[in-house]
């Protein structure tokens, strides 16, 4: 199983990971369109902790999966092929139990314009193919995809 690891001493706090995360989970996969036409500002699954020694945090891919246990709809699940914890947004009912359960604060609520709501969390960019966007966008090698 893979997870994204952050080396906090290398994080430069630029926030490029947030931008590329947002774009990679958009329909257009284009930064400008994602932020403007699609209105996806703030839908990044990785978040920069602001401050002098801040660093980026995203899902730790915990083995004991508290978010999966908390899920009332069965949307939050362990992907059988990759082993990653991901949320099936079509099944998600937006009860936010997973958000309450996550010990790292890495699941976020999202409301679409039509009222649909669901939880957002890092899916290791499985939905977008390839190496996670944040890892690719990190200018200093602080974010790495590691086998655990």
């Amino acid at each position, binding site marked *: 199983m893979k997870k994204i690891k952050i080396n906090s001493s290398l994080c430069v706090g630029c926030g490029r990971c947030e931008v590329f995360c947002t774009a990679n989970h958009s329909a257009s996969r284009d930064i*400008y369109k994602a932020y403007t036409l699609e209105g996806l500002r703030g839908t990044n699954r990785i978040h920069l902790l602001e401050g*002098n020694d801040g660093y980026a945090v995203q899902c730790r891919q915990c083995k004991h999966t508290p978010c999966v246990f908390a899920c009332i709809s069965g949307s939050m699940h362990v992907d059988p092929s990759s082993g990653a914890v991901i949320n099936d947004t079509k099944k998600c009912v937006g009860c936010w139990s997973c958000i309450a359960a996550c010990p790292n604060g890495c699941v976020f609520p999202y409301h679409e314009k039509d009222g649909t709501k669901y939880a957002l969390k890092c899916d290791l960019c499985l939905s977008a193919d390839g190496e996670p966007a944040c890892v690719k966008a990190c200018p200093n*090698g602080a974010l790495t995809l590691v086998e655990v």
Partner: protein
Amino acid sequence: MSISFQMPRYEVLRREDRCVKCRVCERQCANLVHRYDADLDKMIADEMQCVNCQRCVVMCPTRAIAIRRYPLEYRENANWTERAIVEIQRQAEGGGVLLSGMGSPDDKPVYWDHMMLNASQVTNPSIDPLREPMETSVMLGCKPDSVTLGADGSVKTKLPPQVRLSMPVMFSAMSFGSISLNAQKSMAIAAKKLGITFNTGEGGLHRDLEEYKDAAVVQVASGRFGVHTDYLSAGCMIEIKIGQGAKPGIGGHLPGRKVNADVSVTRMIPEGTDAISPAPHHDIYSIEDLRQLIFSLKEATEYKKPVCVKIAAVHNVAAIASGIVRAGADVIAIDGFRGGTGAAPTRFRDNVGIPVELALAAVDSRLRKEGIRQRVSLICCGSIRNSADIVKAVAIGADACYIASSALIAMGCHMCGTCFTGKCNWGIATQDERLTRRLNPEIASERLVNLLSAWNHEIMEMLGGMGLNSIEALRGNRLMLRGIGLNQKELDVLGIAHAGE
């Protein structure tokens, strides 16, 4: 109270059709140029603070930013240029000595660009380094006048200590204090991997770099910061810094705000105090005094390390170099006026010293004439920009070249020339922990290894083209050079013929 006449030097161009207000530029600018205004829902820029370091340009996820010269259109005047006017305004306001970082940007002749290399055609074969052996390694140090061999062919003569370099390049002196530990560590890692050396500068050897000590040249400068017996024995060579090309005749000044706990321990000075390197070494006022220091250092290291003396290229450099050889130095480094610096008074940087090409040629010729060239290795430094500069330097007479600005550029430096502010956005010329972490030694050392591997390959190709199979065969081989656009006096000093001759 009056208003300042100073205008921004650069303009921030932000393409609104690309900017998504992600604020990456704002977070990355240590000069606080970019700011998000919530009322306007817009990124705005304080251009007075911009130094054109290009950090925001490179980091912007949508390539929305460009920096260009501020369109300050004074009335055209070839004498009273914009720079001349602005410098007067700055001094009229501040009343201080003008400071500059990096090498002189002045449009003075670059002799490397006026020399062309030879290549084999018909009468002698060129060599393909991919198929045939090609040697670019060099040994630095005093060579004996003669060698006696035993019956089995082994060398009987006791050879003076030497430094082996896998290619004729070394990282030049940049102290911990003037640059970050990560920057120095990047060069140390790269030097070890490449089989070359890095230089501690005058700031001592940080304990984290001890594992790279075999690749370290340890410097002893006029401030004697961080110098002790273990330090002297740690490196592969000791360098006495007499002068620096960017500021011949003056010392150095590391501001107290850059002297944090780590720098203080390494330099052996109190935290927060200014580290002042005097203009002269207070124990050197003659060649005889220099000899005393050279032999004190040799004595301290049991004659196991070669001792280098670094001088700035100045008017009587040939005579000075001759004296240095006779004082017992094993290596001489000559630093030209275009050499870089963390901080130098602008007037010194742009007006003092001579071009290193002419100095190197004069020194090599003088030492040959006096029959003492073999007693010393020559290092050429002061703005070596590419592998062709190195090949030309070796052809004039250098054994190896020091590079510093090129190495910094490989690591991320964008030559904005504001090293002395301590706010280097690339994490190089700063001790601010938030900024130094921007330079990942693993990534930066790889970039250095890439750069120098490429240069080494290019050197081999150029040697092969000339029909030579070792860098030793090129040293002082000025027949391989021809001048273009140079007058007779310049050709005479360089000791080369004009193209077509």
